């Protein structure tokens, strides 16, 4: 952690809020397009007795003609016995996973840009201060 961050705890809080918000938005979008993503994390919710995960879609049509969908993760056993694992838990785990992906992407981008800056030959560096201009 750079000194800039340790000196400004407010920056960390803002970064965390942005991260949580971005992860929630990303999870909302991905869970609408690919609800089956929850099955990736099924081992966290399904035990060995009911190891097969299904994301079940319920579709409702309201009186005004609007269509709504509900998703539920089910753990299913070999005899068809099943347990409702809900959707809140899987959604939360997907959000955490997406937050980790976002952090990794940001770290990779920062590292890449620093690497590029270091590799640039000194002659091609832009003059950023008067001291650079004098030297």
């Amino acid at each position, binding site marked *: 952690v750079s000194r800039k961050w340790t000196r400004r705890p407010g920056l960390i809080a803002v970064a965390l809020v942005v991260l949580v918000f971005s992860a929630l938005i990303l999870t909302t*979008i991905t869970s*609408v*397009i*690919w*609800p*089956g*993503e929850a*099955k990736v994390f099924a081992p966290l919710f399904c035990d060995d007795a009911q190891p097969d995960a*299904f*994301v*079940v*879609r*319920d*579709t409702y049509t309201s009186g005004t003609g609007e269509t709504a*969908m509900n*998703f539920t993760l*089910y753990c*299913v*056993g*070999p*005899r*068809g*016995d*099943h*347990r*409702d694992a809900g959707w809140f838990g899987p959604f939360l785990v997907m959000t955490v996973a997406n937050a980790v992906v976002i952090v990794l992407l940001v770290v990779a981008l920062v590292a890449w840009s620093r690497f590029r800056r270091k590799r640039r030959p000194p002659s091609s560096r832009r003059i950023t201060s008067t001291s650079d201009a004098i030297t």
Partner: protein
Amino acid sequence: VLALTVLLSGCVGVTDRDDFAAEVQRRGGGVTSDLVSGPMDQLRDRLGEDDPELLALSITPSSRYVALQVRDPDERDNVDDYVSRNGHLGDPEPVRVSATDDLDSRTFRVSQLPALDRLEDVADDSIAALGFDDAYVTSIDVSITAGAPGLRVSVGSPRATGTATFDADGQLLSAVRA
């Protein structure tokens, strides 16, 4: 991209409710012994009674739904309905009992029915005895019949339905196509 998003919305990796129900049926209907043992454990804790007196026990495995009619151990003439969904036992609902209802003649205890500890075998035996293709258990009802507790297993299939009856030990008594 927007059109693709709308087209793909809720499509990737999901199973529709009807298809899920069909998958449960394809695997046999979902009969496992914990359908009874789970709610009974909760009922024992709730009543403080090791072996509560029951008047009826009905299991719908496809929805993990168990209905129990129970005599209050403190006031034995009081009867309550309990429902268990997904393994969670709900609150008791009082049942009206008529003056002519002979509760004692309908009362049984789970300890009298060893078959409830091996419901998987009961389900398999029912399906085998009826011999339907793609058969699955739709419900199991426990009650007193001809003075003894027994099980009545309803079996469904795309082309036929039937009923198998078992004694308290899980011995097959009859299997009849409807």
